[in-house]
Every structure is written in structure tokens, then in C-alpha cells.
């Protein structure tokens, strides 16, 4: 995720972390009304939100990350954004925050920490993963009317989102992306094609790859390049 933080990462306001309800993670929300939960969610929001804009901005996200104990570049933050269906990279609105935390059944940092690991497993399921994967691309379209993402960012995104799932394939493909000159940007259609490619095509022999099918041209070129180098 891109960040444009100018201030050093500061710890969260110590006072706000001593929230009576946050101390007791086992007091489940079910015994309280939903309103109470929402209240805590909102309070948590305010901890990290920028007072003037009313949004959690990149700095806020950074401090959230440090409180939760994950690096801001960790894929779990992206997953959190996905859960929130956050529209703009580096920012969470109140609506999005509420949506995400409610879905996770979380109203405190402690719960959030736990929820994040569970979230990883949830996302790993095939149907959910597809949705997450396509979200990841859209999340990186920061300019209005932007349809494609530059190669450098794509490589980072691939590593982040697929690095653990398809380690060798992704490494090999990223190597190619960096040296090829045909494409400077990647669009959504190609992006989705990559996942299908890693899912379906055997590696590293690419035995079942057929360039006469409608695979994106960049993948045709990649397979060709691999085959020439292998022989």
C-alpha cells in the first residue's frame, strides 16, 4: 500500500488506549446492545482518524498497524481494507471502518489482532480469494479514470497478494515482468488472467499452456521467454 506520511510514526494517544471496554475483550458484544458495539467501533475510529478530515489517513493507518503489531506493508492490512471495501488507498472512511469491523465482529485492537489471522484463512478460500484479488488491483487505482497500474507496482502487488500462495511462480513471473519491454502497464483483465494462469498452468514446464487460447499476450510472451531460456 502506498503511503505519504510526512510525520514520524507516533504511538497512538496513550490516553485513548485506556478505553474501559477495550480492556475486556471477553465481554462479548452479544450481551450488550449493538449500539454499544457501534459506539466502541466509532471510538476506535476516532483514535486513528485525522480530526480535520474526519478520515483515517495514511498516518493513522500506520499507527493502527503498529498497534496491531503488523507491518503497514503486510498483506493483512490489505485484507482489512478489502473487508471494509475501502475505496481509496491509504484512507478509511467511517462508513468503511464500521462496515469492516462489524463484519469482523471486532470493536477493539485486541480483537482486531485476532481477527486478522482468522481473516487470512477466510480470504484463502477460492471464491473469496478471487474477490480479494480483484479488489487488490482496484485498490491501487489511485487516480480518477485510471485503468492500469505500472509494472513496478504490479510486481509489488503480486508479491504481496500471491507471494505466499504461489511462491516460485510469482518469483519467476516478476523476474520476467521487470525485464520485458512490451508492456509498461497492466490492466484489470490481464491482472485477473495472472491468477488464472497460476491456478491452472503447471509450473515450470507449462505443459498445458496453449497460446492459441485467449490468454493475455503478456503471458504468451512470458511462456515463450521461459521456454527459450529453459532449452
Amino acid at each position, binding site marked *: 500500500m502506498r503511503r505519504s506520511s510526512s510525520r514520524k510514526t507516533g504511538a497512538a494517544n496513550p490516553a485513548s488506549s485506556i478505553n474501559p471496554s477495550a480492556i475486556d475483550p471477553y465481554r462479548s458484544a452479544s450481551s450488550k446492545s449493538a449500539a454499544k458495539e457501534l459506539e466502541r467501533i466509532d471510538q476506535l475510529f476516532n483514535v486513528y482518524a485525522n480530526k480535520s478530515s474526519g478520515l483515517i489517513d495514511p498516518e493513522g493507518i500506520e499507527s493502527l498497524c503498529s498497534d496491531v503489531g503488523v507491518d503497514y506493508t503486510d498483506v493483512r492490512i490489505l485484507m482489512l481494507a478489502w473487508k471494509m471495501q475501502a475505496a481509496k488507498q491509504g484512507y478509511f472512511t467511517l462508513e468503511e471502518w464500521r462496515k469492516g469491523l462489524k463484519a469482523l465482529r471486532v470493536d477493539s485492537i485486541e480483537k482486531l489482532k485476532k481477527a486478522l489471522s482468522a481473516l487470512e484463512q477466510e480470504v484463502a478460500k477460492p471464491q473469496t480469494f478471487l474477490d480479494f484479488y480483484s479488489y487488490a488491483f482496484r485498490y491501487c487505482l489511485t487516480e480518477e479514470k485510471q*485503468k*492500469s497500474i505500472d509494472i513496478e507496482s504490479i510486481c509489488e502487488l503480486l508479491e504481496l497478494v500471491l507471494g505466499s500462495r504461489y511462491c516460485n511462480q510469482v518469483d519467476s513471473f516478476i523476474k520476467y515482468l521487470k525485464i520485458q519491454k512490451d508492456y509498461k502497464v497492466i*490492466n484489470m*483483465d*490481464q491482472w*485477473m*488472467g495472472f491468477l*488464472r494462469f497460476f491456478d491452472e498452468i503447471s509450473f515450470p514446464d507449462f505443459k498445458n499452456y496453449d497460446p*492459441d*487460447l*485467449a490468454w*493475455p*499476450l503478456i503471458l*504468451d510472451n512470458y511462456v515463450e521467454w521461459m521456454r527459450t531460456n529453459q532449452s
Partner: protein
Amino acid sequence: MVLGVSQHPRGQLEWSNMTMNERKVIDLDQGWAFMQQGITKLKNILEGVPQQQFSSEEYMMLYTTIYNMCTQKPPHDYSQQLYDRYKEAFDEYINSTVMPALREKHDEFMLRELVKRWSNHKVMVRWLSRFFHYLDRYFIARRSLLGLNDVGLQCFRDSVYKEMRVKVRDAVIALIDQEREGEQIDRALLKNVLDIFVEIGMGHMDCYVEDFETEMLADTASYYSRKATSWIMEDSCPDYMLKAEECLKREKDRVTHYLHSSSEQKLLEKVQHELLFVYASQLLEKEHSGCHALLRDDKVDDLSRMYRLFCRIPKGLDPVSQIFKQHVTAEGTALVKQAEDAASNKKAEKKDVVGLQEQVFVRKVIELHDKYLAYVDKCFMNHSLFHKALKEAFEVFCNKGVAGSSSAELLATFCDNILKKGGSEKLSDEAIEETLEKVVKLLAYISDKDLFAEFYRKKLARRLLFDKSANDDHERSILTKLKQQCGGQFTSKMEGMVTDLTLAREHQTNFEDYINNNANANPGIDLTVTVLTTGFWPSYKSFDLNLPAEMVKCVEVFKEFYQTKTKHRKLTWIYSLGTCNINGKFDPKTMELIVTTYQASALLLFNASDRLSYSEIMSQLNLTDDDVVRLLHSLSCAKYQILNKEPTTKTISPSDYFEFNSKFTDRLRRIKIPLPPVDEKKKVIEDVDKDRRYAIDASIVRIMKSRKVLSYQQLVMECVEQLGRMFKPDFKAIKKRIEDLITREYLERDKDNPNTFRYLA
């Protein structure tokens, strides 16, 4: 043997104690004894024993006896018995006389005997059935029994024929084989024997087919199989084919003379199978005399024979057409290599110019086409398989370029040379027409037709603008031919160009009138302007050349004039295409120089300065380095040195200095200083690539708009087909365009099937 009824007194039948008038009951044995007399007489006649012929009374009596015995009241109605004894009469005769006679003979003698016996038998049946005729009328009909004629014939079949048929068959086949070996045989005899096989079938061909034909065909097959085995080893392909043709002819002849006509097709098929089908590949691929060799050595007769023979066997022509295709492809590819080799020996600086070798190459390809088209026509009877083979062969090598020039360019250059003044081809009008016709035919084999069109257009522009076209009629004629071959869209721009020139002349006349009528509008220099319609002509880069002052006025005057004619058009001046006649006042003598506008502009700079540097010239003219180098080279380092260069090297460098060469002179008063044209090749290819991208886009959108949903493979296929008339689109290019259209949201990939696309309205 002819039996008749006569009045001869000898051998007359006698009734011992009866007259015809009484109608007493005839006892069976009595009656039969009488009949037996008749039968015996008949037999004697057949055996050649001297006998009287039957008189009409005798005939009548025999007939009536039967009649009476049949019409008597029971128990004296002897129809059944008579019927039986009728048959027995034949059996008896056959067993006692006929069979023994046959058994003791062999081979040809046996055959003759058989023919005789059969003939006799038929006579016997005819006569006896007449005597016993009354049985046919009622008894046989009522009981639905076999008729007398059939009974009689069957007797022969069930006895003589049955016993003799194998021997007879073998004897006949032996004679046939003898004839095949060149001996004379009695064909009439064989015809008669085989007629027996046909007739004995009594209306069906089964006896002929099963008892003779099948074995005959098998024998034929093994006969020719043996022959073929030895011939294929010893004979060359043409000799073998001659033999095969001869054999087929003889077998056909055989059918005409004695075999039944129904055997013809089966017989010829057997022969073809053994001689041709079985050994087809060996024959065609014979190393020194097979199909390849015949093509190589132009053996037209042998190839025609090959066609005639191989078109008879199933798929026989396929391998022949394949070899033909390979041969033509090889010949064509050799021409390409020849041209390549010649081109690589050219001097380095002439590398990009399409030279003489390439011209020769196109000529040779045309000749090759003529030659093999004649083959298709004469040897291969215009068969579609061979037209296809020729087409595919040419498509292979016609799309190979030579020395970096694509075939499209070569062809366009070839046309240019024919159509321009002083071109390398000097031909009569008729020859030109013919050649142009053939060139257009070759175009059909080239897949990059759009590339040809663009090169052609560029060269046409040059011819038209620099007045280099040799003959207007030829120009129009080839455009008509191209239109016929490739459609109106192909030639519409070119036709527009030719029309523009005609209009330009009119414009010029009007311009001259305008100048004459407006004194202050006179530019002081003779000016000719050609106005071109932008869409028709190739795109030209127009640089902002700094015109010499004298010319600036010209341009202004024309602009004014043009405003009077039309207000809705914008004029863009292309100085790079202009020519100029200027006078150079050299010391020896004044000379007229015919130069391009660029060159003229450069020269006029020296009216104001004696000596100019490269950079000064460049900045004053406001042209690119490329243009400046080229034009200065033409004025100082080429044939005519109008300017002196310092240093006097042969190439232009940015540090050079130039001076007017006042000492320059030439034998002539008027010289043309050529400025070699920029190589357009790269630009043409770029332009065509760009047009192709648009064309592919348009095609994809068109297809998807009408189909809405389509699989990738279908889309590619239809796209290739749609565009095929102009060029063969590269698959990768199509894929790229699809991706682009997805980004531009004309299409999307189907969510469930990644190989299918949907049109987004």
C-alpha cells in the same frame, strides 16, 4: 443347324395304326413311342446323321399327339407324365451322347465341342418345346410350373454346365493369359463360350459372374501383380506408365471383343489396382525417373500420361499434385535464393535501393508462373487440385522478401519501372499490357496486399508529380486490373490521384488567367501549382522551409487566387516535392539548372553570401539534418559540383563550409541535378502497420457488434477472414488489439468462460 419343315419323303414319321381323323384314346406308351420317333429324328439331325428335315405334316402330328394326350379324359390325361418325359428326353440325350463327347476333349477342342453342343441343345429345346407346346398353354400355366423352354435349358445347366464349368472356365482363362502374352487366340470362340455363361443364367448374370468372372478377375489380378513386380524393378517410370497404358487399352479391347460389357469396369479396376494403386508411391518417387524428375526435365508427355493414369485410381492425383507443389515451391525458392545471393554482392551504399537483381527476380517469377500454369492447363487438364497446388506453392515463396525488401515492395517497384519514363524495362505497348496483367495475377499470391498498395501509391505519386509517367493509358489500365482483382476500395485513392492531376491542369490554366488579368498579382516568376486532395495522396511531412523571398511572393499570390475559388479548403504546402528551374551565372557560361525547391533555396542563399557554413545553411533554411546533408551532397559531392566544399571529402559533415563554384560548367546548357529520394520504405511499413491496427480494431468491433458473444478462436478466425483480402493479420497483433479494446471498454471477457468475449454496447 437349321431345322425346317420340308416335303422330303425320306424319314417321314409314321403312325402305325392310326389316322388323324379318328379320335381314339391314345395310350401313354403308344403315344410316347410316336413321340420318341420324332425325338430320335431330331437327334439324328443334330448329330449330323443324314436325315430329312421335318415336314409340316410330321410337325403337326407330333404336336397333335401331345394335344390329344393332354386333352383326353382321365385316367388318360397324361400331361404330368408327358411333362416329365419331356425333361427326361433331354437328360437321356445329354447323358448318353453329349457328355461323353465332351469328356473326351480338352482345352480349345473342348471349348469348340461345348459351343457346338450348346447350339444343338438350343435347337433341340426349340423344336421339342414346339412339339410339346400344348403343355405350356394349360398344364404348366395352371400348375405354375417351369415352362418348357426353361426346363430344357435347365437340363443342360444342371448336367453339362454343372460338370464342365470349372474346366471351361480354366480353359478360357488360360487362353486369355496366352493372348496377354502376345499369342493369337480364337476370339470368336471365346465370345461364344462366354455367351453360354450369360445365356445359361436365364435372364440373370449370376452364372457368368460366379462361375467365370470372379475367377477371371482374380487371375487378372495375379497376372498383373506378377508383371508389376518385375516391371517396377526394371522399368523407369515413363516406361512403366507406357506399359500400363497399353495394358489398359488391351483389356478394354478384350471386353469389346469377347468379354461381357458388364466386366469392363471391374476388369479395368483390377488392372489399375495392380499396376498403379499398389505401386503408386514407388512409381512416383522413382529416383531418376519419378514425378520429380519428370517435372525437372520438363517431360510434358510423360506427365500428361501420368495424369491420365493416376486420375483413374482413388485419390491417385493427390500425391502427384503434392510433388508438383513441392517442385514449384523449390523452383521458386531457388529464384529467391538466387536473388538474395546476387543482392548480397551489391555495394553497401546501394543496399536499400531495389536494384536490377530484384527486377530480374520478378521477371523470373512471372516466367515461372507462366510455365507452370501451362503445365496445369495442358498436362493436368486444368484440374482444380493442381490449380490449388500451384497457388499454394506460389504463396510460399512469393511472400519471401529479397535482401530486406518485401515481395510487395518488389512488385510495386517492378510496376514503377515499367510505367515510368526511362524505366529499365523497354517494351512494346502490347508487351507492357501483358506484363501488367501478369503482375496483377501475382499479387493474388501475396498476403500483404495493403503493403503493395501503399508502395504502389507512393511510387505513383512520384511518377505523377515529377511528370515521370510514360503513358497515361497504361496507368489507367493497371488500375482497372487492380480494381478487378482487389476491389474498388483498393484503387479508389489511386484513381483519385490520377484525377487530381487532370484537375490540376485546369486549375493552372485558371491561375494563369488570373495572373494575366491582375497586374499586381504577378509574382514575377513562372509558377505552376498542383493542388492535391489530401486523402488520396500518401502523407508527406511538410517542413517549414524558409523560402527565398522570390518564392514567398509566389506562394502569396497563389493563396489569394485560391481564395477566390474556394473558401472552405486549407492549403498545406509541400515544398519537398517541388521543382525549380534556376539560372546559374557561372564564369564560363550561364546555365539553367533544374533542381528541387530545397536545392534551389539552398543555392539562392549564395546570392547573399559568398561562403556559408553547414550550420548557417541549416538554420537559414530551417530544415532537418537529414535533408540538409542530402541536398548539400547532391550539390557538392555528386556528379555536378555547383558548390565547392571545404574540406573536399566525399561526405557532408556539420563542420563543412560551402562556396559558390563560379568555375562550374558542362557541355550542355541545361542540366538536371537529381536529388535522390529519401528511402520511403520504413515510413511505408510504419504507415501500413498503423492502418492495420485500425483495420483490425474496426474488424473486431464489427464482428463483436453483430455476434454479441463470441469465443476467442471464432473471433480470430472471422477477423482473419474479413481482413484476408488485404493482408494476413498476425495473431499476436489481434490479441493485442483485443486487449486494447478491453481497456477501452468495447469488449469484456466473459465471467464464466475466460475464452469468450462479450460486446459492450
